[in-house]
């Protein structure tokens, strides 16, 4: 931790009153925050070195293997994504490497009948529930094919305007109850996003209306350049649940078995009419905000250093190898299979045609209004004209 390179706390004290600051200042706040991130009040199943600390929380072996597979799929996407981005074959996207346990362990507690409301960073969660890799690549290629949401999934498109997904998850959850199902809605948000009003309104609505929701708050330490401790004076965001009379849980967000365990409990409670739960996954954004971001502008290497040792993939891997659930050979097969799947998806994404000009007006209403019909005609006229101009130029 090198305090001088971290953004200083935004504390607008007038110099004249500086001495009045008898209350815990920001150094103390930071220390408290940092301490809380390591404290034992988080649910943990595997220690960072992969040893089991809560035998009673261990999921079935098959589940542990499946969690590893999904984390690997996610990591593969993230790693290949970087390469593809540098090759100009993928647009700017927000990486999530290092956050796989937080995304996969939680989403894995759902079935395909449940709702998933992911943010732009939650590719790992969406892939876990079955969002096709090809569509996801298309999305970050700025192709409308990334907007074709599969009919057999209730995975919503990535949410860009922060926190808006939270109240919507309440509505989807309520609708399921109204329709007599046991399905639930899960929504993701970041530490930064939890400062938005929608976060509060959603948790309160879910509690008041007893909506079967699971709210995942991924505390990855940063909202772009703003560290969590500058985002709030609270050191334990799961305690916000108390203010809504609903359960709140803090979990090691780099421990897939722990995130899976607490989420499954929350999902079960929601399914059986017990209402919503807030789960804070304590993790870290080891990567830049997006592949185009340069974090050295606002944080130092030292800031992120401790987190490599907590890597969620390595942690589960060690456990699986130690527990004899996986061998290096079986892992190699898995990785090969994942690579094959990805390359096939990439080929599929490559095959998606470019959008046509008038497509930008598709799907605004079930029936285009007269205005949209006219605007479409304008576009067609212009682009047909251009195309023929282009053609005649080329022919000339």
């Amino acid at each position: 931790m090198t305090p001088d390179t971290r953004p200083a706390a935004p504390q607008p004290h007038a110099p004249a009153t500086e001495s009045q600051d008898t209350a815990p200042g920001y150094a103390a706040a930071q220390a408290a925050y940092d301490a809380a991130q390591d404290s034992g009040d988080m649910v943990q199943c595997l220690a960072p070195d992969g040893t089991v600390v809560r035998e009673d929380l261990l999921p079935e072996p098959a589940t542990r293997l499946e969690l590893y597979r999904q984390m690997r799929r996610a990591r593969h996407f993230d790693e290949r994504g970087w390469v593809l981005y540098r090759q100009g074959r993928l647009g700017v996207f927000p990486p999530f490497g290092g956050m796989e346990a937080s995304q996969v362990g939680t989403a894995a507690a759902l079935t395909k009948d449940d709702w998933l409301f992911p943010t732009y960073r939650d590719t790992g969660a969406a892939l876990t529930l079955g969002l096709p890799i090809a569509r996801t690549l298309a999305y970050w290629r700025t192709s409308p094919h990334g907007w074709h949401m599969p009919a057999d999934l209730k995975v919503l498109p990535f949410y860009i305007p922060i926190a808006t997904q939270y109240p919507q998850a309440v509505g989807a959850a309520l609708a399921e109850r109204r329709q007599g199902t046991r399905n639930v809605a899960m929504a993701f948000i970041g530490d930064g996003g939890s400062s938005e009003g929608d976060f509060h309104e959603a948790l309160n609505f879910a509690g008041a209306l007893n909506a079967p929701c699971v709210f995942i708050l991924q505390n990855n330490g940063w909202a772009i350049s703003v560290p969590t401790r500058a985002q709030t004076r609270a050191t334990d965001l799961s305690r916000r649940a108390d203010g809504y009379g609903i359960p709140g849980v803090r979990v090691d967000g780099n421990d897939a078995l722990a995130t899976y365990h607490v989420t499954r409990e929350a999902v079960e409670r929601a399914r059986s009419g017990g209402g919503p739960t807030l789960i804070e996954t304590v993790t870290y954004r080891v990567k830049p905000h997006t592949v185009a971001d340069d974090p050295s502008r606002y944080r130092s290497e030292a800031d992120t250093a401790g987190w490599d040792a907590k890597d969620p993939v390595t942690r589960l891997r060690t456990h699986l190898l130690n527990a004899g659930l996986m061998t290096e050979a079986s892992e190699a097969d898995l990785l090969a299979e994942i690579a094959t799947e990805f390359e096939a998806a990439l080929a599929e994404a490559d095959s998606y045609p470019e959008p046509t000009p008038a497509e930008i007006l598709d799907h605004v209403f079930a029936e285009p209004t007269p205005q949209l019909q006219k605007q479409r005609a304008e576009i067609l006229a212009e682009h047909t004209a251009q195309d023929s101009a282009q053609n005649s130029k080329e022919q000339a």
Partner: protein
Amino acid sequence: MTATATPPTGTRNMTMVAAINDALDIALAADDTVHIFGEDVGVMGGVFRATDGLQAKHGEGRVFDTPLAEAAIVGMGIGMGLAGLKPVAEIQFAGFLYPALDQILSHLGRYRHRTRSRYHLPMVIRAPYGGGVHTPEQHADSPEAILAHTPGVKVVIPSTPADAKGLLLSAINDPDPVFFFEAIKLYRSVKEDVPVGDYRVPIGKARLVTQGDDVTVICYGGMVEVAQKAAAAAAQAGIGVEVIDLRTLVPMDTDTVITSVAKTGRAVIVTEAPRTAGFHSEIAAVIAEEAIEHLRAPIVRVTGFDAPYPPFTAVEDVYRPNPLRVAKAIRQVMDY
């Protein structure tokens, strides 16, 4: 809507708020997916009683109060719509829609688009709007232009009890989001015969209120009765005024407007929203684009002013267009 054994026929004389209540009742009875919610809509039946008796009749699951938070009311409605329900939200006053604008501008109109119709939102948002009844600050706002500028949402504003019923039933049955603004001034001030049963008025068709050859007056909602009075006064002076009640702002029935202006050559547009960049400007722009060769006089907008709507009983009618101001505008375009 499922057909009943013996479809009801005939009409009933009712106010606009009763007609709205009737439409909601019919929609709730006909379609299990319809749900009504908002602040005080349950036991209390809404501050204007538009949902009176509906919770008792259709149950607390179908008609329910929410906590006080407009963003979540709309956000929750979006989620309900995603999951196959038909949410009908009430916002207590149009001026309190503002906290929900993020959900509206960011999602309501975009969902069909950004999922290529995998999802669509058959949501209706009802809100009382406009002035004329001496409400407190911010209770008389007319924010319809903001919604009209939002791609992917429709905007409907009825001016009669029958239209309120018929348009609301169309809105609830529309597959896409519809804003339904109800002029507070009209809730109880007029009664008329309203068709019973599942009566529908199509979204997107304007209504010719009066016919005339000299001036076209385009308006909607609470301004229609104002325009009608001005037209009646003009008729006395031998001026034929064609009053067009737009009924829906999005999609706007441009044809009816252009046809009328092509005939009269004069256009007066009346709304009670602030002057700059109101929906009146859109109407004027459409005319200036499509009917300019017919215009014999400048287009005149009669509107609220570029100040907040005044909560001052004594001078409220200075701000809100009244028949005199509209009549003056009619004279102005005639005398040009």
